[in-house]
């Protein structure tokens, strides 16, 4: 895993780039200036430095990415608004890199990274949640195209996305994992209908996507026909790494909100709540130090399985902390700011009301792999415990009970 690119090399390249492209002008200019700067950064291999040369990177070590990001940020350069294109960056890009043809990499990666094209993910279905491999959206071959029919759900950003990564069933007559293929769908194509999906917070962060005879050219297939499950593993692995993985200072995240609430209102303090707050503070700090250790393991090239612990405890903690905040606030916590149906593009756990936090956190143990599925994964892949008896892996998909 040793890289030829050293940190000094990288810094030299960045300095040279910044000398030629004025970051301040790009940030202060219009959209076109911003975009030109980002495209140039991509072309110079300074976008995701661990990607191959020619695809926005330099084949450098993954641990050097923060060096580049920090240097550009320090120079006041415009960024690619990563919060908005998280699915593209975190899921589509690594999948295209590993499984895409060279044409696909050339076509998709640059506008993905610059944020010109937003991506979404069409995996989950109403009947296929934890059991993703059981999904039923059909893709039928028709000449050089595939014709799609089905319904996808829990799609964030679908209403603004240009492209989607999509998993569909190309063969219902074989066992479920074997009959899937992986595609890139044009979200502007006819037969693609996006409807907002309101969640219990009152907002519609997600969408449902109905596919009715939507066509995908075969050139937009990623990996071989029938290899969709394998390709999807790359996507999902990267999703789990990307959720809840950011570096935070002590009391960063939701625990800081609870601690601030505790400090600001001595009148609400009780011994029982104190115990709860302290237990959560300790757990939050433990989770933070665990994430810190995971990042050090990653940087050392020895990723290890501890990352799955981070996602699982992130969900549990967010739920417990937000519940405790409501308990602490008492009557005042029962007042929400609004029940209006907004369409937020990001989840803001520290800037909204306590009721929002409590409700939204319920999704943390469902989205991106339920906590139950994660526990299965830890038990089997990390601890090596035996799988349960399976009844669904040798039967043709069409014959499974559902």
């Amino acid at each position: 895993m040793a890289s030829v690119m050293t940190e000094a090399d990288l810094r030299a390249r960045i300095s040279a780039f910044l000398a030629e492209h004025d970051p301040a002008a790009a940030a202060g200019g219009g959209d076109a200036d911003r975009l030109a700067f980002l495209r140039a950064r991509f072309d110079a291999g300074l976008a995701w430095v661990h990607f191959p040369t020619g695809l926005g990177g330099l084949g450098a070590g993954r641990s050097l990415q923060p060096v580049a990001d920090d240097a550009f940020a320090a120079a006041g350069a415009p960024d690619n608004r990563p919060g908005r294109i998280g699915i593209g960056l975190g899921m589509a890009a690594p999948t295209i890199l590993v499984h895409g043809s060279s044409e696909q990499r050339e076509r998709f990666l640059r506008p993905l990274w610059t944020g010109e094209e937003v991506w979404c993910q069409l995996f989950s279905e109403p009947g296929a949640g934890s059991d993703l491999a059981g999904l039923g959206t059909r893709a039928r071959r028709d000449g050089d195209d595939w014709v799609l029919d089905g319904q996808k759900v829990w799609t964030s950003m679908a209403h603004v996305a240009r492209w989607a990564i999509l998993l569909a069933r190309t063969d219902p007559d074989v066992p479920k994992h074997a009959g899937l293929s992986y595609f890139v769908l044009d979200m502007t194509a006819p037969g693609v209908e996006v409807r907002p999906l309101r969640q219990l917070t009152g907002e519609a962060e997600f969408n449902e996507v109905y596919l009715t005879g939507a066509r995908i050219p075969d050139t937009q297939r990623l990996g071989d026909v029938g290899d969709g499950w394998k390709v999807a593993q790359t996507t999902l692995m990267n999703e789990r790494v990307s959720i809840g993985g950011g570096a935070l200072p002590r009391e960063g995240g939701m625990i800081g909100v609870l601690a601030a609430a505790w400090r600001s209102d001595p009148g609400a303090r009780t011994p029982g709540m104190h115990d709860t707050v302290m237990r959560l503070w300790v757990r939050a700090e433990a989770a933070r130090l665990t994430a810190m250790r995971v990042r050090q393991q990653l940087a050392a090239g020895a990723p290890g399985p501890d990352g799955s612990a981070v996602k699982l405890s992130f969900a549990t903690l967010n739920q417990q902390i937000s519940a405790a905040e409501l308990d602490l606030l008492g009557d005042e916590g029962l007042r929400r700011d609004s029940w209006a149906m907004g369409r937020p593009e990001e989840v803001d756990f520290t800037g909204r009301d306590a009721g929002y936090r409590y409700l939204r956190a319920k999704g943390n143990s469902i989205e991106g792999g339920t906590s139950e599925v994660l526990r299965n994964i830890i038990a089997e892949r990390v601890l090596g415990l035996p799988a349960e008896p399976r009844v669904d892996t040798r039967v043709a998909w069409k014959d499974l009970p559902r």
Partner: protein
Amino acid sequence: MSDLVLVESPDEQDLRSGVRAMLAAECTGQSVLSFVSGFSDPFDEKLWRTVARGMGLAGLLVPEAQGGAGAQYRAAAVVAEELGRAVAPVPFLSSAVVATTALGSSASHELLGRLASGERTAALAVPYGLWSAPALLSAQDGAVTGAVRGVADALGADVLLVPADDGLYAVEGSAVRRTRIASLDETRPLCDVEFSAAPARLVAPLATVPCALRTAATMVAAEQVGLASWCLDTTVAYLKERYQFGRPVGSFQALKHRLADLWVELTQARAVVAYAVADLAAGGDDGLVAASLAKIVGSEVAVRAAEECVQMHGGIGFTWEHPAHLYLKRAKATSVAYGSPDRHRARLATLVDLPLEAS
């Protein structure tokens, strides 16, 4: 206290079936969702007419002399439980239990009689989370001045009962300023109430308020048992019919064990609430202990059941369209109502001589 009857009588069973059947027809998950999504009415008036006038359940705690059924605590608990099971947006708890109890038997015949018939509703003007002595408003020359934040079901109440310096006053709803809040639990909306020299008449001594709060704690616990019970039943039913991995999801052992534990907790909550209700009905020898126990155990099981219900429904449980969130919000809000478990544990510690500090 060990001779209190903790099991249901045939009459109580009949009442339960009757209320449940009515609610199954008139208060479905979909109807409550529509109510909540509308964000306009203070409560479901049509449903309340059925509960109060149609079935005559608003007067269960009103003395017989004033047209009520006379301290039918066991029956009231059955009704509260069934209304909780349906997250029914009606002011039974606030009007027929809390306000009625706060009026006491010495209140004017006229108001109690009209509450009993369901013709009018009343709300005790205290914060929903109140568990100890309320802040008192100022009463002068037959008028009340002051403000109370976060009062449950006050928006639609015809009469507000206001704890003031020298007693409990009745104020017409039309004489006060009420501001609706976007409440966590919109099936029992809160509002802020302002009294600016609002005309008021003294209706009861303040001593009735603690009694009303204690009754509220027990009855809200009954409601929570009903709520938890819906969550468990609904989750079990869903997990039987939902297939993933070629199996009903309810056949997965980790979920089964969590539901078994939840059932144990619910079974215990049912016994504790039965005890608190039986104690109330018998005159309340063990009143404060029983009410605090009920409120703690009821709150805990309701929140846990609703949270498990959302989680075990997976994505669908996180949507607005599925009623699970109505139960989650009611559970969390009632957990705060009339004293959180934490507050009641603190009270209990004093009552049962397990103080934190050396005495």
